[in-house]
Every structure is written in structure tokens, then in C-alpha cells.
């Protein structure tokens, strides 16, 4: 029990708090309760007196000093609402303990107002970090610094907000998990285990990149930027040994992935200037013939170029990932 509720949890303290109600409800009183309780609590049975339980009462888990203690791994306070239940004849039949976050429901609703249940499900699946093969998508706004200088700050903020909302929704709609946002860049992961196969994950990743082009073009239009220089570049790669998991802090909960392939995907994206979407050979060759055909890709005729040979290759790409073969999708 201590392990479930946290090290600060004291069963003896809890027994002293609720034992009087238990004693009140135990037929046979103290003698029966003494036989029923855990041996480590027997001595406390003589220290409590029966008390009439309130019809309903709330409680928080606190230690002997009144300090809130983590409950089942949750750092923030958990409130419980205990309600005594009676049948239609008025006979007491039991009680229900309702667990609630200390945050008010208005706060919970606000935090989850825009959350997509499909994404919450996927995040739950990767709560425990593990190796999970996945397609990786990196996307970034090109030349964002000069753009930010040309337009007003409120206009750029509105654009940025529209952009991340649209990108996240698009990634989720295509079966992905939204990764970290850094600056004007986003990452997405398409797990083989959620897509159903490696090919399905790779296909979803490529379809998401293609859909993002349209979505982001709409965002630019709606933001009154009317600027053809506003383009997005995409880097798509396959991570066969990705280590994917959830990172939860007091400030946020997010999914992240670690592995050399993530760094390689970033290198690929950086080389995709000019609004291109570059996919690695590793990713393309995950596709089955059927999925490739659905994407209009001929696996037998595909031509690749290594990053080092691209005219747009960055210094980092030439240094760290020169031999990664890519093609435009």
C-alpha cells in the first residue's frame, strides 16, 4: 500500500483517520475488527473509538505533518470524496470513494479543451519508454527569422498559433504522435505498433507530410502573409531502434524519441530547403508495393541522392550524415 500511494503514505495514520468509521460499521465491534485488520494495525484498534460516519466527506492524502503526499505516482494532490450508500429501504450497503484531481474541473476542462482523444490514447500507449520502430517526421518553417521581422508581433504570434494547431491536428489525423515543438519546427512519430505495420507507419508519415503542405499553405493564406517565400521543409526518416516514451513534468506532458535516427531526420529536414519533402531510402523501403503504389512511388524505379551530394546540404549534414540516401516525396 505504501508503494502504491508513495513513501510518505502511512497506513497507521490512515487507519487512525478512518478506523473510527470502520469500527462503527463493523458488526461485533472491536473484537471482530481486531481479528480482521492487518496484524500491523491491531494495536491501534484499542486506540480508536467508534464514530458515526458522515453521509459524505472529502479528504486529501496528507502525511502526519499535514503535508500532501503523492498518490499512486501523481505528485499533485488527489482529493477523495467518500459517500455512504443506502438501498431503497434505507439500509447502509457500502460506500464509494471517488478520486479527483485537486485541480478544479474548470481547470481540467481548460487543459483538455483542445485535446484529441485519439492522441491521448496514443500517448497512453507510450507512457512507458521502450524501443518502438517508427517513422519520423521533421517539419520547419524556412526563413522564419526574416518573416518575424517583416510582420507585427501579434500577427506573427497568431500565425504561429494557427500553424502549430494545424500541424498537430494533421499529424494526429494521420495516426501520428506529436513530438516536441522547437521554434517554428515540429516533430511527429508514426509508430509501427499503432499503424499496424512498418509499411503503414511509413505511408502515414509520407501522407502526413503531403497533407501538411496544403494545411500550412492555408494557414499562410489565413494569416494574411501573402508571401511566397513562406515555405516549409520536411525531413522523413525511419527509426528502427527509436526509444520512445512520455516525459511528464510539472509543466507539461509530451512524447519524445531518442536515437541516432532522430538526429539524422533533423539533418535530412535541414537539407530540404526550397519547400521540399525529403524521405530517406530507409523509410521508402519500409513500404510494401501496395502502399508505395498508393503513394505514387515506384519502388523499383526510385532514385536516391546522398545528402552530401545535395546542393542544399548543410554543413552539419555533410559532417554527420553524408551517406544518408534520400529522394523527394
Amino acid at each position: 500500500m505504501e508503494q502504491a500511494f508513495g513513501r510518505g503514505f502511512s497506513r497507521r495514520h490512515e487507519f487512525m483517520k478512518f478506523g473510527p468509521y470502520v469500527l462503527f460499521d463493523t458488526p461485533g465491534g472491536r473484537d471482530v475488527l481486531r481479528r480482521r485488520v492487518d496484524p500491523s494495525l491491531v494495536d491501534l484498534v484499542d486506540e480508536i473509538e467508534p464514530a458515526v460516519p458522515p453521509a459524505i466527506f472529502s479528504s486529501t492524502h496528507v502525511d502526519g505533518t499535514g503535508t500532501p503526499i503523492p498518490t499512486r505516482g501523481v505528485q499533485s494532490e488527489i482529493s477523495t470524496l467518500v459517500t455512504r450508500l443506502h438501498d431503497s429501504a434505507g439500509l447502509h450497503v457500502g460506500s464509494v470513494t471517488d478520486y479527483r484531481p485537486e485541480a478544479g474541473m474548470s481547470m481540467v476542462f481548460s487543459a483538455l479543451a483542445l485535446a484529441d482523444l485519439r492522441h491521448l490514447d496514443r500517448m497512453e500507449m507510450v507512457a512507458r519508454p521502450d524501443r518502438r520502430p517508427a517513422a519520423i517526421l521533421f517539419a520547419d518553417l524556412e526563413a522564419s527569422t526574416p518573416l518575424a521581422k517583416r510582420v507585427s508581433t501579434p500577427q506573427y504570434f497568431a500565425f504561429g498559433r494557427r500553424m502549430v494547431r494545424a500541424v498537430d491536428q494533421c499529424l494526429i489525423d494521420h495516426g501520428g504522435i506529436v513530438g516536441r515543438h522547437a521554434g517554428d519546427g515540429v516533430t511527429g512519430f508514426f509508430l509501427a505498433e499503432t499503424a499496424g505495420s512498418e509499411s503503414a507507419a511509413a505511408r502515414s508519415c509520407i501522407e502526413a507530410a503531403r497533407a501538411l503542405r496544403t494545411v500550412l499553405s492555408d494557414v499562410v493564406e489565413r494569416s494574411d502573409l501573402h508571401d511566397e517565400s513562406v515555405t516549409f521543409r520536411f525531413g522523413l526518416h525511419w527509426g528502427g531502434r527509436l526509444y520512445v516514451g512520455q516525459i511528464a513534468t510539472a509543466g507539461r506532458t509530451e512524447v519524445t524519441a531518442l536515437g541516432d535516427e532522430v538526429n539524422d531526420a533533423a539533418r535530412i529536414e535541414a537539407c530540404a530547403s526550397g519547400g521540399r519533402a525529403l524521405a530517406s531510402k530507409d523509410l521508402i523501403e519500409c513500404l510494401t508495393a501496395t502502399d508505395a503504389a498508393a503513394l505514387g512511388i515506384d519502388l523499383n524505379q526510385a532514385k536516391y541522392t546522398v545528402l552530401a551530394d545535395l546542393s542544399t546540404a548543410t554543413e552539419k549534414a555533410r559532417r554527420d550524415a553524408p551517406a544518408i540516401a534520400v529522394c523527394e516525396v
Partner: protein
Amino acid sequence: MESSDSLPLPADPTLAAIAAAYDAAGACAVFHDAEFFFVYATREFLKWDAHRLVPAEPLEI
């Protein structure tokens, strides 16, 4: 109502009806009988209890 990952509903019909309603509403709750013996936990509580939504390790910095 019950799925493979839920517990059998309590034997007492009143408790069972209330427990089923709590379960259907997605509440995170546990039930005790009139003598304070544990008799039921909702599916949401079981998921929470399995630590699936929280970090696997204690948050210690």
C-alpha cells in the same frame, strides 16, 4: 457493461447498480461494502492503479 479488464460487479444489487453507473461515466472510484471490505474498482481506477498514465519512476530530481 463489463469488459475483460473490469472486475465483477458487487453482489449487492444497489452497490452493483451504482458501481456500474460510475464505471460507465468514466469515474475513478472504488467501492466498499457495509463492513468496509473492498468490493469494486472502476476501470479508470484500475488503469490509474497500473500506473499507465504516470511516469514509471518516481519524480525525483
